[in-house]
């Protein structure tokens, strides 16, 4: 299995297009950091505009608010919506790419079971996903800390504001990146499943993105009918639960409780939903692949 995994990883990281995703992430993060470096106060002003009639926000407040932790959160807020596309580029190519090149049948002539072959492919796609996230973490978190320094983190939700002290943040990012790895692996497993049906990788990649986009729109819509019926079952609803690590509890006087998470059971529930989806997609892909006539 390890040998199979090494071969699949070699295949992934040998292709130049694999690095397009790394390049795209580096470009987006860098451009965002540059924009906030030069015009961050305008961005902060836009967010604070809603409450600046009640509070005094000095220039010093805005400068301190725009620290590395805040910049990283803003980057993740934008990038983690786009990242499924980058993940689908590789996972959607896993089987369909081999079929397209006509190497699938050849690969299966080796003394390796189809299940093992599929697991090797899936684990390789997952490792690619995690390495992409690790790269993002280094650039977005460590890069932003190096550029903007550290301070308290303030999260602006739709109807509440959560502030955490600077020594209570780093562990939240580790947890959030861990959760995001599971969320993106869900997308990878969906692309992996769709890849089984196609002989060309473009189909599964576009299909995966279409599903993610439609589901994301449904997840963000505030329609009571969908809130109760569809939303709880969409994996996209649970993909944003990494943010839950930045929602804190407060005591009776409204003061933040250090090290607290507002609703950990909700995050764990979302995590379980994603894990169920991964198991469902991957096992379906294996089941279908085992019964499939390999013609190319």
């Amino acid at each position, binding site marked *: 299995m390890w040998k199979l995994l090494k071969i699949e990883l070699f295949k992934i990281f040998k292709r130049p297009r694999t690095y397009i995703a790394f390049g795209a992430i580096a470009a987006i993060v860098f451009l965002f950091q540059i924009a906030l470096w030069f015009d961050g106060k305008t961005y902060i002003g836009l967010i604070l505009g809603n409450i600046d009639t009640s509070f005094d926000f000095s220039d010093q407040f805005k400068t301190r608010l725009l620290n590395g932790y805040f910049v990283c959160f803003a980057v993740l807020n934008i990038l983690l919506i786009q990242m499924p596309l980058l993940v689908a580029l590789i996972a959607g190519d896993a089987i369909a790419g081999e079929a397209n090149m006509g190497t699938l049948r050849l690969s299966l002539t080796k003394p390796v079971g189809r299940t093992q072959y599929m697991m090797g492919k899936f684990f390789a796609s997952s490792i690619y996903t995690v390495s992409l996230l690790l790269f993002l973490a280094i650039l977005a978190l460590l890069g932003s800390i190096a550029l903007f320094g550290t*301070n308290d983190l303030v999260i602006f939700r739709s109807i509440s504001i959560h502030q955490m002290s600077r020594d209570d943040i780093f562990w939240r990012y580790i947890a959030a990146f861990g959760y995001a790895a599971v969320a993106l692996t869900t997308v990878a497993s969906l692309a992996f499943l769709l890849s089984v049906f196609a002989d060309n990788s473009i189909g599964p990649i576009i299909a995966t993105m279409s599903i993610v986009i439609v589901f994301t729109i449904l997840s963000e819509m505030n329609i009571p009918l969908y809130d109760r019926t569809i939303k709880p079952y969409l994996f996209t609803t649970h993909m944003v639960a990494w943010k839950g690590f930045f929602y804190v509890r407060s005591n009776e006087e409204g003061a933040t409780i250090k090290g607290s998470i507002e609703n950990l059971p909700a995050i764990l529930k979302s995590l379980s939903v994603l894990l169920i989806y991964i198991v469902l997609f991957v096992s379906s892909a294996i089941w279908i692949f085992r019964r499939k006539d390999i013609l190319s």
Partner: protein
Amino acid sequence: MIFSSTFIVFKKQRYNKYSFATIFFLSLLLNANAQTGEQVIQKIKMKLEKINDYQAEGTMKTNVAFIKAPVANVKIFYKKPDKLLILNETGISFIPKGSVNINVNNVFVHMQSFDIIDGGTDSEGLRVLKLLPKDDTADIVLSTLYIDEKNMVVKRSKTTTKENGTYELEMSYGKYLEYGLPDKIIFSFNTKDYKLPKGITLDYDDGSEKNGDTLKNKKGTVEIDYKNYVINKGVDNKIFDR
């Protein structure tokens, strides 16, 4: 019988005469000691004028329905006549508008702009003085001071403004009573609704924000516990330029 009843009436009349006289003299005496609103204000003003500047350390708790923030370690700087700065160690604190009013000296500095109306005493025995601005265009509509006449300090104040609603200030005194500086203040203020479109925040719905309506139009408070004051040791003007 007639004699005895006449005697009782006479005694009653005599008793009433003495009583009235006593009350009359007592009231004269009390009136002589009672201070007018202006006098009370003047005495407190003189007490507060002993302070040219101060810096104090303390902790600040912000209690606003839609804000969850840690208890902050703050430094408060004051310089005559009305410069005040609350400085958080991290620089990130939600300081309400009108926070300059946490410094009660501010009211006394501009006292010549107000007419003073004596409101008597309240149920706690505090002297109530109402300050009405002479200028119709002033932002302050009415300011009410609740004064502890024994110690000559302001215990509570309530200020209604045109632009920013009503501020209330409650002060507890201890070690620095002689300077008229509080050990603890609770500053209450009106907050406006806070709402950002969900499309901007892309919130994770963990079920904790369902009761959004309960967060609207509530009063917020800022509570500052002063640990120590350094009085009249000089405060650099530059510090207020932040």
